[in-house]
């Protein structure tokens, strides 16, 4: 039987030297920056907040609400799905559409007065073998309980988006190797965007343990 090998990851954050102090500039830079930067600000938030979910689940929405204090745009940006049909470029287009539409309805471009600018970054992910493996559902649960949360990120977010698998590695293995299609479907239906990594680990464990 093919075993599941848990792989953790490390994020290296690279500064792009670009910053936005108002929503117009934010939109222009979203249009220009590499897709790794859009990915970083839409996803790797989870790696930085593995335990506590922040105000909103992506950096753009959080900045607009906390620093610019524009709740209207913040709410709209928070609702953007990080999984575009055609990958991260879809997400970029959606973000631009929302900001453009918002700016077309107001006369003054909101910007930071007392807050901090938005600094664009991009992230490089280094995958790290953990040496932990599972050959059964019970071993899978035991491993998942103690593994570094970066492995949860790697097998859920990285697998779906950067590796373009469209599904989490967990679901693929559970269905294809253990034949647990129902469990795999339940895992796929989790709205992982709404959890911290610890919260997601707990949810995954809850679903898997019910199957034991």
């Amino acid at each position, binding site marked *: 039987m093919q075993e599941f090998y848990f792989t953790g990851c*490390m994020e*290296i*954050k690279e*500064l792009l030297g670009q910053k936005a102090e108002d929503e117009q500039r934010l939109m222009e830079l979203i249009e220009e920056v590499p897709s790794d930067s859009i990915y970083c600000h839409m996803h790797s938030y989870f790696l930085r907040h593995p*335990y506590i979910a922040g105000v909103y689940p992506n950096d753009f929405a959080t900045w607009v609400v906390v620093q610019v204090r524009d709740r209207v745009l913040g709410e709209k940006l928070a609702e953007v799905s990080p999984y575009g049909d055609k990958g991260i470029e879809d997400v970029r287009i959606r973000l631009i559409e929302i900001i453009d539409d918002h700016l077309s309805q107001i006369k003054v471009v909101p910007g930071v007065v007392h807050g901090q600018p938005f*600094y664009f970054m991009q992230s490089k992910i*280094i995958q790290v073998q*953990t040496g*932990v493996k599972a050959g059964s559902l019970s071993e899978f649960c035991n491993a998942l309980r*103690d593994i570094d949360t970066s492995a949860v990120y790697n097998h859920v977010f990285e697998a779906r988006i950067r590796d373009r698998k469209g599904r989490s590695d967990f679901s693929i293995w559970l269905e294809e190797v253990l034949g647990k299609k129902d469990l795999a479907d339940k895992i796929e239906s989790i709205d992982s965007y709404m959890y911290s990594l610890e919260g997601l680990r707990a949810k995954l464990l809850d679903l898997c343990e019910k199957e034991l």
Partner: protein
Amino acid sequence: MKTEITIDSYRDIAPKGTIDLIYNLVNRLKGRSLLHVNSTKLGGGVAEMLLRLVPLFNNLGIQTRWEIIQGTPLFYQTTKSFHNALQGQPQIITDEMFNEYKKVNQKNARNISFDSDVAIIHDPQPAAFIYKKPKKAKWLWRCHIDVSRPNRKVWNFLREYVARYDGAIFSLPSFAQKLAIPQFLVYPSIDPLSDKNKELPRAQINSVLDKYAIPRDKPIILQVSRFDRFKDPLGVIKAYELVKKHNECCLVLAGGGATDDPEGLQVLNEVKEAAGNDKDIFVLDLPPDANLEINAFQRAATIILQKSVKEGFGLTVAEGMWKGKPVIGGAVGGINVQIVYGRTGYTVNSIEGCAYRIRYLLNNPLALNELGENAKEYIRRNFLITRHLCDYLALMIKMLNI
């Protein structure tokens, strides 16, 4: 006898899985070596951090050396002026000083072996060593200060060196400069096993409070920081006075820097004057090595403040949060990345905002406890030395492309 601290000493403190992740990162770096260079082995945050990190790298099997640049009085005067100028203060720097900087770097470079796979050169003092970089080595310039609005003359001089590195590392995005080389973000960290952060028995905490005659029967509001205007100790007293109209509490302002800094002494005197005869305000000018006392104050505190109006990274925030206390901090510098608003504490923009949040937490013990617990977990996962080590290991892997 002190037991040696190894990476396994952190196994029960770091988030689960982290230590194994570190071992696996190290496996990819087998046989590789690292060199750190800075300007002092004693005093200051950089030396404090290297004192902890270098033995851990060696303990993990990555051969790591730590070299120091030795200067002349004129060199130190020059680099002190560089330090101030790079942070935007007007300074007069003569050609003689620029020449001394180059001369000291060249002289030191003759006596240091640069035979190492990766070198991390800290701050401006040894930056000119870059001309000695071996062809195959990867060198990173680690900048611990805010160079976002530097004195142009000094930055242009320094940029000649920095631009030759393979990358630069900054502590905050806002500290960085426009450079053609890759710029990485690595936050500083605290060591949970140091005297300032290790667990303390209740009896020891009580004895420190008794030593300074701080009452144990009322909530303690604490700010630990140098007596410096940027830390706004007078604003803290005003916030306390607003709180005191409604809630019983005492205020402890614990800091240092007044003995060797004339401005610090002036601020200390102003703080004492503002405190007046209030028996519930304790202004403590502590020696630089009062780490256990600071630890005890933080553990005894109900709420910790860092009401800075200008700040670098402000690791005292992480230290306070690590003690499971909610921190109310000024919305400046690195405080913004340490405090998640409403989840681990509050960032505030005014004296009134600070007072309001103190009152809110004093009257809502459930919220106070929840924020404190979240704060500790947030630091565990983001600002401990184990995360710092992971960042450096990952950067080594990236730079060496292995």
